[in-house]
């Protein structure tokens, strides 16, 4: 059984074809990069996988189950977390509350137990405390302790990106979709992102699907790479193959 497989994924918006018959497979524990110039359909692929778009055609399989067409929250509950290209945080909430939303699916308290939270022994309070303790190490890991109680809307761009990653990690996903982790960063920060991705894969039993505009970083990190251009797959293989693939070189040179 393949861990994660995309089969013939196609997405059309009106007359525009954003994804054209894209297929690939990801094994457990891999870092899999999707590269391609602007507008090549990378983020559209993520939106299809996480259920925000309903694909026009094709199937997505996760741990043997077909998940294409499921609502986003059901896909989230199956263990797929993601970050967004343009940062989609809960802006008025604090960092810790953003992370606690990552814990949403692992918690149970409903309306009544929430309302009746009296004292630290009540079930809702116990669950809160337990889960707050669980996310605390993520804050440490991503160096967010200092902004723990600040509303994330006030934080600088780079920190917001880290909060978004932290929130995805709080979900304890099996598959993590990371969209442009190094966007808007300088060379040093980019290198740090690379180190962090490797660390995450090492420390947490996680498979990472990575979209990255910066080709060197994307290829350097990956176990396997898929290259897209205008929504079509042009190459898929090991990093060295992709680096020397004539179509990939052409796509990037053509892009300028």
């Amino acid at each position, binding site marked *: 059984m393949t861990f994660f497989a995309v089969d013939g994924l196609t997405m059309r918006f009106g007359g525009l074809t954003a994804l054209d018959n894209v297929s690939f497979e990801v094994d457990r524990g891999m870092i899999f990069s999707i590269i391609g110039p602007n507008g090549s359909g990378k*983020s559209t692929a993520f*939106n299809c996988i996480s259920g*925000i778009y309903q694909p026009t055609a094709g199937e997505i399989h996760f741990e043997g189950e077909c998940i294409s067409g499921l609502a986003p929250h059901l896909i989230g509950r199956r263990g797929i977390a993601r970050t*967004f*290209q*343009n940062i*989609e945080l809960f802006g008025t909430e604090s960092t810790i509350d953003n992370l606690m939303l990552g814990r949403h699916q692992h918690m149970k308290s409903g309306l009544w137990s929430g309302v009746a939270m009296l004292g630290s022994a009540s079930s809702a309070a116990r669950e809160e405390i337990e889960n707050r303790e669980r996310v605390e190490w993520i804050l440490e890991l991503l160096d967010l302790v200092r902004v723990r109680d600040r509303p994330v809307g006030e934080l600088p761009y780079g920190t917001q990106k880290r909060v978004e990653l932290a929130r995805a990690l709080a979900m304890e996903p099996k598959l993590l979709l990371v969209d442009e982790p190094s966007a808007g960063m300088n060379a040093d920060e980019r290198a740090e992102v690379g180190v962090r991705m490797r660390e995450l894969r090492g420390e947490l039993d996680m498979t990472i699907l990575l979209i990255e505009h910066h080709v060197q970083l994307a290829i350097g990190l990956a176990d396997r790479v898929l290259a897209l251009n205008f929504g079509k797959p042009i190459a898929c293989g090991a990093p060295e193959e992709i680096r020397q693939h004539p179509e990939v070189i052409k796509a990037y040179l053509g892009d300028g």
Partner: protein
Amino acid sequence: MLLQVLASGLSAGSIYALMALALVITYKTTEVPNFAQGDMAMVSAFIAYMFLTDFQTGFIVAFGAALVFAFLLGVGFEGLVLRRMRNPTHLNLIIMTLGFTLALFGLAGWKWGADQRRFPFPVSASEVVRLGGVSVSTLSVATILIAAVLMVVVFAFFRFTKLGIAMQATQQDPIAARINGVPTRAVVGLTFGISSVIGSVAALLTAPLITLDPTLMWDALLKGFAAAVLGGLNTPVGAVLGGYLLGVIENLFGAYVSVEFKSVVAFLIIVIVLWFRPSGLFGRHHERKV
């Protein structure tokens, strides 16, 4: 019987169509559903009333004054209130129009009291003409004609005048319009002015039918929204058709099902349309991009 019902439906529908059109042209431009539309029109009707009774002017002067007032009120509301918001989220914009409507409602009540006043009008609601077996009041005939003429004028304005085209361009893509030299700020203000005038015509036609008091346009506002939802909040033609359709459906319901619950029809239509076709019968759906 059926023809009679259709005639009354058309007459009521004319008012709904005007309100719907007024709501839709501002909604298209600014994405603000203007809940103050009804009370802005109500105050304008009171202005006409003031001219007619206090100043003893003729109808032309009084109605002219009311429309000029309505235009200024619309432009003023946009320029002095809506545009000055610090955090113009959708929710805040809606709340702002609600606050404004409450203030207008209070002002009208303060100035003119809650008494129901008879509104003088050149044609009467009780005088009846017979047209092919159907008896309609002269007021209904006037309502249908005036509304139709006004709507034709408005659509022609959008279609054929330079200003109207500039307004449409602003509705479609404000940034592109500005780049192409359209003074978008002035255009948005103007849109509110025109929309307010259309609404006041509806109010001037409603006041003689019922009586004039500060709640004059509550019902018409809801019906205008229902019509706009029915036809599509983004499609002026659809909204107008929705207005006529609502008028007819409502009167059919009143004639054959229940008179008491006629007003509930509008709500039911809103719910049903939104459930099955959220963008209206004639509209297209937009999705948010991530």
